[in-house]
């Protein structure tokens, strides 16, 4: 594993750049634990100070040090994405692998659910959830709701792989050896989709963070918990652009773009690890 990472770092600039960007974001997020202020306190520093030696990224109109706000926001946003991705991966894996292996009626039933979730318009539903649940809608709750809405595409993808693996000889072999369907799915088929899982995880984190930011900017989340979207929300509330507090908007956006691009680069460079043909193409050895 370590050797693969080292090789990828050396030969694959997407992987190297993505790792670098994500590491930067991660370090920032971890710095939040050293913050001198509680992230939810306001008016702890003079408001509207531009970036300087004292306030690295300036201060907000709410009297918060933007640097420490950003670290806390990144930590929460990243955690949010990871929770959504982890929970939705579990659902996608179970549905995809079992639907692919079982086939027939079970497959049709599971895919009925799956396709329902694919066609559901997620954004209005999330807004609806916010209005219905209001005070109970913590960041964690939102993550769970989004995880329950965001697994369907990947479940189809995993099902496709499971169907092809099912048709291979070793599955017949496993059945003949008396393994139960659960054992076959979890022991024989699961390892097959793990690389796929990596890259869908990255995409899912991107998707969930993007949606969370959209909701937060519009004020449809718990904006008192600092998050990237929450920072932009408060900047808009205080008309930061009009009053020339550009840093309040610029730095969260830059951090968010770095996070997105980093995850995206990692997801596409994963291709190289999954599919040896693209490695060959890079070496000029045909396709």
């Amino acid at each position: 594993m370590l050797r693969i990472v080292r090789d990828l770092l050396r030969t694959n600039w997407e992987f190297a750049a993505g790792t670098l960007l994500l590491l930067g974001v991660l370090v920032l997020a971890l710095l939040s634990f050293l913050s001198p202020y509680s992230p939810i306190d306001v008016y702890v520093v003079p408001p509207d100070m531009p970036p300087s030696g004292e306030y690295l990224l300036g201060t907000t109109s709410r009297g918060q040090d933007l640097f420490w706000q950003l670290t806390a926001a990144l930590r929460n946003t990243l955690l949010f994405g990871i929770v959504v991705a982890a929970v939705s991966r579990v659902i996608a894996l179970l549905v995809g692998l079992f639907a692919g292996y079982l086939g027939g009626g079970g497959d049709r039933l599971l895919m009925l659910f799956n396709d329902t979730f694919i066609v559901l318009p997620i954004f209005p539903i999330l807004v609806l959830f916010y209005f219905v649940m209001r005070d109970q809608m913590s960041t964690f709750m939102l993550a769970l709701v989004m995880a329950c809405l965001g697994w369907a595409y990947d479940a189809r993808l995993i099902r496709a792989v499971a169907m092809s693996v099912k048709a291979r000889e070793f599955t017949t072999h496993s059945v003949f050896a008396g393994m139960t369907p659960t054992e076959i799915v979890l022991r024989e088929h699961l390892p097959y989709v793990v690389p796929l899982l990596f890259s869908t995880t990255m995409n899912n984190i991107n998707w969930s963070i993007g949606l969370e930011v959209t909701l937060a900017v519009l004020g449809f989340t718990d904006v008192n918990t600092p998050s990237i979207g929450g920072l932009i929300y408060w900047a808009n509330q205080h008309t930061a652009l009009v009053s020339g507090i550009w840093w309040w908007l610029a730095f969260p956006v830059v951090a968010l773009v770095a996070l997105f691009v980093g995850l995206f680069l990692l997801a596409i460079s994963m291709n190289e690890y999954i599919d040896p043909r693209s490695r060959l193409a890079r070496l000029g050895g045909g396709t």
Partner: protein
Amino acid sequence: MSAVLSAQGLRAYYRVQAFGVTREVRAVDDVTLAVGQNEIYGIAGESSSGKSSLIKTLARAIRPPLEVVGGSVTYDFGDGPQDLYAMAPDRLAAIRWRNLSYIMQGSMSVLNPVRRIRRAFADFARPHMEGSRAEYEERVEAHLAHLQLSPSVLDAFPHELSGGMRQRVTIALATVCRPRFIIADEPTTALDVIVQKDVLAMLRRIQQEMASSMLFVTHDMAVHAHLTDRLGIIYAGRLVEEGATRDVFRTPLHPYTSHLIASLPRIGDVAPKQGLPGRPPNLADPPPGCRFHPRCPLAIPVCREQSPPLEALAPGHRVACPVASRMPQAA
């Protein structure tokens, strides 16, 4: 000699339904055969003659659309004959691998490419073996050593092994529980002749040591001549001839068998080989009567009408051909 496996009038069809029309492909049609203890029974036939369907049916490793339509498959593992298709699932699970094991076609794809060999043994063989973990590991390693494989293959992935090694691993996997009956589906087809000879010798040795029976399927007549004790010839889903391998090669009775054997090259033989005209029949719509009659040089009118039964013309030598039955036997 009591039969370990006996199949009676076995029929298995591929049934496909589309738009209300049912199509049947009669891949196994009225096959009756028996395999005794400590015997290697060979099944020969060309591609698409129903060999693989037959042994999948004999192993109960069939999946829709292939289904058993009639007949029975009975195994006797020393505790009385039992019908394979009437067996309860737990009993079936208990005999598989321990008593009945299956070396599947295409060893290249039998092993899961993303799992190490050690895991394959743990998944497939461990549940069927008793004893502690240490005993199990010792047995596996001893068995591998017996097949000239070093224990280090256990930590390899299938793609890290050569074709011959992989084939030996598959055989090791199927024989580690010392089964009484081994079904082998073209285990040597993908190998070159030298590796093939090794693997065949190894199979033979294992079979003899365990005094188990084996059903060996290949289209390669040379392998049959080399390995099997008795031989059954399949044509278009039917058993057309059966007998001791030596007798079948010396005095083939069915015209199809004669052609099959005549196709084998011999050293010093420079005469051009004559191909049999025509193609194997479409099993969804087989010709009436004897399925071989459109290609048969000896066909007589009765062949077009009646499907010939298997008749014993010599002790242990059965043939399904009215022409051969009428001819005086030189042997």
